[in-house]
């Protein structure tokens, strides 16, 4: 009986070894570099379907030698899975990151391939907006290609504004009046909430730093020529804290920490809030809450007005939402670069995507003829506004180094609830930023005068 058992065990081991061997036989397929792999974070089924049909399938139809194979990942876990895989020397050929600040660790670890020769060969400098391309450089090497770009904006319902006799404020005084009138009307003046996305505080900080302290001050501080404890920044943070205390922003701290994105859109549609401070990514979903059936309200957007005398016109705060890069461990860098180049050479496809599903396009050098006829004029006008911007601002998740960026929103939450003073918050930021600046971790930034 026992020898029989032993024989059975050996047989199992032999089968296991055979299966392992067979599994190994399939591995070289990917290693030969014939298929270019990507893991793409997605936020909706519609996005996945659109990307697969209009980008992946469309590319593969004309490039059968190095077809692209995309594995769609949940937005919340894609970055972690990819980090673990790349750290193990594996991972997809084309690497996604949530912006230049997030990608720095990959660059520093030598996990990304410099793309200078492809940029030169394919003329990417003439195709991508200069400020956006600049964020992809580290020590003269181009590693990151911006895949989406975004800005902060103020979403509102024109019908609500008209019914209350409001117009979009153009300065701090007008805005303060608007805030008071909103509250008098029983509405939250600045709807926002971080229940769905914990770092939402960085969206608000991006607005107040640029619109209260001013893009020039932010640029100088990011360049290490100015302290984060200077009065402009104290003013910016104090302003934000004041709005939370008066419940003008997010309905106060308790509501802020428990309000979801869905509730925020609804608050504009149902007149419980007069504006919703969000980003251009709002275009992905806003239509769901404002059906164009002629029955309900409509939506529109505006830039947040200048909020201090230091700022003369509304700054267009810009940033990169996602970047793509080539894995240094790829067996087929030319194939990966070819797909990226195909994306860059197709501005019409980028804007068609934005028109169809609201997802931001690559920051390419668009001209009027690139915009599809069916694009929502409100969406088109946003990207035109960014292109025409005379003064740009800086979104924190693109231009701040990683630790400072996390400090910005996590510690600001403590300021909001009163656990940390504005002065201590900024002193902590100043110390941490100085450390990361010395380590060369601050991403490159364009001049505010664009």
């Amino acid at each position, binding site marked *: 009986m*026992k020898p029989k*058992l*032993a024989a059975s*065990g050996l047989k199992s081991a032999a089968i296991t070894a055979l299966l392992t061997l067979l599994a190994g036989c399939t591995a070289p397929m990917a290693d030969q570099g014939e298929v270019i792999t990507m893991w793409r974070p997605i936020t909706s089924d519609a996005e996945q379907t659109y990307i697969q049909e209009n980008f992946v399938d469309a590319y593969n139809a004309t490039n059968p030698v190095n077809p692209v194979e995309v594995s769609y990942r949940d937005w919340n876990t894609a*970055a*972690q899975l990819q*980090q*673990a895989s*790349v*750290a193990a020397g594996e991972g997809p050929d084309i690497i996604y990151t949530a912006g230049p600040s997030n990608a720095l*660790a*990959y660059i*520093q*670890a*030598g*996990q990304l391939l410099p793309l200078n020769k492809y940029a030169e060969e394919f003329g990417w400098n003439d195709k991508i907006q200069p400020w956006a391309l600049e964020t992809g450089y580290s020590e003269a090497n181009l590693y990151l290609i911006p895949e989406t770009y975004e800005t902060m904006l103020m979403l509102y319902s024109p019908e609500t504004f008209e019914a209350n006799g409001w117009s979009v404020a153009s300065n701090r005084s007008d805005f303060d009046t608007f805030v008071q009138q909103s509250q008098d009307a029983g509405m939250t003046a600045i709807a926002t909430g*971080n*229940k769905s996305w*914990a770092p939402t505080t960085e969206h608000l900080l991006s607005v107040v730093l640029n619109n209260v302290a001013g893009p020039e001050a932010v640029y100088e501080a990011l360049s290490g020529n100015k302290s984060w404890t200077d009065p402009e920044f104290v003013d910016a943070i104090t302003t934000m804290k004041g709005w939370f205390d008066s*419940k003008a922003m997010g*309905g*106060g*701290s*308790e*509501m*802020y*920490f*428990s*309000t*979801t994105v869905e*509730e925020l859109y609804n608050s504009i549609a149902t007149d419980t809030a007069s504006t919703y401070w969000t980003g251009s990514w709002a275009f992905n979903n806003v239509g769901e809450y404002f059906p164009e059936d002629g029955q309900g309200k409509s939506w529109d957007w505006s830039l947040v007005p200048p909020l201090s005398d230091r700022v003369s016109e509304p700054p267009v705060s810009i940033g990169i939402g996602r970047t793509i890069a080539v894995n240094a461990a790829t067996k087929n860098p030319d194939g990966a670069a070819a797909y990226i180049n195909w994306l860059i050479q197709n501005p019409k496809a980028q804007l068609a995507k934005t028109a169809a599903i609201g997802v931001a396009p690559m920051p390419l050098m668009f001209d009027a003829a690139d915009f599809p006829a069916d694009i929502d004029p409100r969406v088109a006008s946003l990207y035109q506004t960014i292109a025409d911007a005379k003064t740009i601002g800086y979104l924190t998740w693109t231009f701040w180094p*990683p*630790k400072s960026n*996390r400090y910005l929103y*996590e510690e600001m*939450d*403590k300021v*909001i*609830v009163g*656990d940390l003073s504005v002065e201590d918050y900024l002193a902590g930021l100043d110390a941490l930023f100085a450390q990361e600046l010395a380590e060369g971790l601050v991403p490159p930034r364009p001049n505010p005068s664009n």
Partner: protein
Amino acid sequence: MQKKQIRIGWFYLLPLLTVNGVVVFLPAVSNVFLSFTSWSGLGQPKWIGIDNYIRLLQDDVVHQAILRNLVWTLIFLIVPMGLALFGAYLVLRAPAAGTFFRLVFFTPYIVSTVVSASVWSFLYSPTLGLSPLLFGAGADTPNLLGNGDTALYAVALANIWQWWGFLMMVFFAAMQSVNPSLYEAAELDGAGAFRKLISVTLPAIRPTIMFLALMTVIWSFLIFDYIFIMTGGGPAGKTEVLGTLLYKSAFWSREAGYAASIGVLMGLISLFVVGIYLSLRKRLKWEI
């Protein structure tokens, strides 16, 4: 012959030992190594000695997180354990309705954590949940997850709702195995229901209680899912525990080396708890 049997035994154990070695032992050892390095999670780790541990000792956020883990442990040692013991005893005494109640109490345990946490988040919503129904909509509506003083307890309540039914089932099974003659003897001595629970049932199922208490302490220091889903460690870090802190350090701040040292700390705490249990067992001569 006996040696051959031992060899065969080891042969059959080999796959399991290999798997354990690869997925438990090696990662554990590499985690300890990484805790002595500065590592972003990508590229080569840089050896920095005990710097991460010095930072752990000085990091107020870590101290606060440990404190919350302790509060969580205390809550879970008292509330669900107490509820489960009491519930199991009642179910045992009502055989007719027992099956129904066991099913009702155990059902939450088979619900996915993500679903359960999401439903509870909705219930706690100050605009859509139970609060506006019970207390009316408005600025004064209780906002349990938005308030730093109540958020941790609100999350704990959600987790208890799912967890206590499982404990009850385990206690119920243990109570069923208590020798009926002990109850008969107690009755002859004039013991009532409460006295029988205290003097017969609880001592008889003490090994089960101790084991679940031990596991409760260990699990409480590993808590991550409910807190991450329901509050993300907020508001303003008021529900941050070691598990969420480790995750954020590794993936948000890209301080995987520091995150590894938090992981080692969590492991040491678990070992400490197991050590206390083993020491108590030896001193009090428990069989389990």
